[in-house]
Each structure stands twice: as structure tokens, then as C-alpha cells.
């Protein structure tokens, strides 16, 4: 199902303290959408990881940069895009990370898409199912069967 125009867009300086702003906002989104606490926890963790990657890797040391976060919802899905305008994904021999970020995001989200943007920067697109964990998607044509 195609996502509509984002319901929420945040652009802020790509600095470590602003990852907390995004987490805090996601808490509010979770309240409004009545997300299951476990789902909200996964969303916060995965999005924090994507934002932290942008803060740590996107821009050269001392270079200011921006971080964009967009959020769209559909009845059963939450899509979050984290975007930077930095130097794009590249191997880093001096990377300070443990290398678990991408597997973590992939494991916590329903789908994960990473893109090196043509105009520079990296885009991380994550989708999360908003249903309670363990509850399967309703089978098409079965809804309203009275069972």
C-alpha cells in the first residue's frame, strides 16, 4: 500500500543530543497511534540507531549537517525515513561502531531499505507493523466472518 505524504517531518542538526529529541517525539507518536509498548520500543531503538549513524558517519568531524526524519502511517504500518545530506555510505577502516547497527535495524523492522542518494547523503527507510506482536495480519476476505 503506498504511503501518503508524511504526517510528520522533522529536520534538525545532526548532533548526538538531537537523537533524544527524535526518541521523545516517537513516544508521542506511539501514544497517539496506541502502539503496543513492544512495537514502540522496537521503533525507538531502530530509529535511534539510524539517527546515530547519521550523526556519527554522515558528516566529517566538525562539519555541521542536518538530519531529516519523516513519518507516515497507514492502517497497519508505520514508515519512517531517516535521511542525511552527508558523504554517503562508505567503508570506514576507522569506524567507531561495532557493526551491529544495520543488522539491528533489519531485525527490528519489517523492512529496511538503504539508499545512497544521488544528491549526496544516505536514506534509511524502515517499515514497522503497528499490530500487536504475535498477532498475524488478517487474511484477505476473512474479515467479518463472525468467527
Amino acid at each position: 500500500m503506498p504511503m501518503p505524504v508524511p504526517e510528520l517531518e522533522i529536520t534538525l542538526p545532526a548532533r548526538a543530543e538531537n537523537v533524544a529529541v527524535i526518541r521523545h517525539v516517537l513516544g508521542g507518536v506511539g501514544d497517539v497511534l496506541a502502539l503496543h509498548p513492544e512495537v514502540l520500543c522496537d521503533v525507538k531503538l531502530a530509529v535511534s540507531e539510524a539517527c546515530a549513524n547519521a550523526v556519527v558517519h554522515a558528516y566529517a568531524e566538525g562539519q555541521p549537517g542536518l538530519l531529516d526524519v519523516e513519518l507516515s502511517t497507514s492502517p497497519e504500518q508505520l514508515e519512517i525515513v531517516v535521511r542525511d545530506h552527508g558523504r554517503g555510505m562508505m567503508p570506514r577502516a576507522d569506524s567507531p561502531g561495532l557493526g551491529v547497527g544495520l543488522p539491528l535495524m533489519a531485525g527490528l523492522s519489517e523492512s529496511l531499505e538503504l539508499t545512497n542518494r544521488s544528491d549526496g547523503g544516505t536514506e534509511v527507510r524502515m517499515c514497522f507493523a503497528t499490530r500487536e506482536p504475535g498477532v498475524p495480519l488478517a487474511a484477505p476476505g476473512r474479515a467479518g466472518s463472525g468467527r
Partner: protein
Amino acid sequence: MATGQPGASSGLDRFDRTRVTVAVGPLVGPVLARVVGIHAARADLPLDRLNDAVLVADAIAARAPAFAMDERLPVSVQSGAGRLELRIGPLRPGGGRLVIEGAALPNVGSVIERLADTVRVRDGGGGGEYLVIRIDATLEPEAER
């Protein structure tokens, strides 16, 4: 009421602001309150002024969506030591003043004007306008404002 280009006189750096655009609907209140609250804390506003800032955010969330263009409300927030600035808009013409007046309580007046240190409506060009609100660590007595 001051007019002029938003941001033109405040020396704002685009790498020093948080910009939020939220669709008119249930997300506006919770998102604005959280963004403003965390920036107020970061600005080291004392607790009473932090509460004032969140009250102002709630008032904006309640009134400003009615004057948003394209069903989306843009708000930018900048915090510095002991101060917080909110810029709401562009809003539809006349919207800035109506947001302020709409937040009035009997015998109190506009909550926004009572709690903020400065409240201005600025022409944004292109038919829109901006409501610019500054909240400082210490609220100056009304007579001195």
C-alpha cells in the same frame, strides 16, 4: 506588532534550529509539546518557565492548525542559554493574531501573551505570516515589556 521577514533580524543559523512540519490532526499536540519541552530543558529554563513553554505549545497546537496552509503546520524551534524561540508558520493571513486571541481566557487574556516574553506576527511574504514567540528563563514583569 512587528512585521518583517521571519528570521531576518534574529541571526538564526539553519544548523541551529529544529524544524517540524506536522499534518493537522492528532499528532500536532503531542509532537509540539515534546519538541518544545525538550528544547526548553536544553535551554536550562527553570521548571516554571519550562511548564510555561509547554503550555504555550499546547495553546499553539490547539489554535494554529485552523490557520495552517495545506493542512500542515510548520513550526521551528531554537534554544539558547536561557531562551527559547518558536516560529509558527507560514499561517494564513490574519492567522497569527487569531491564534493569539484564540488562546484568551476570561480575566486572564491571551495565555500566549501572558506567558511569553515577546510575541510577534511577521509577514512571511507569499501571502503567509509567521507567529514568533520568545520565552526567556525569567518572565519580565508585564509593565516592563
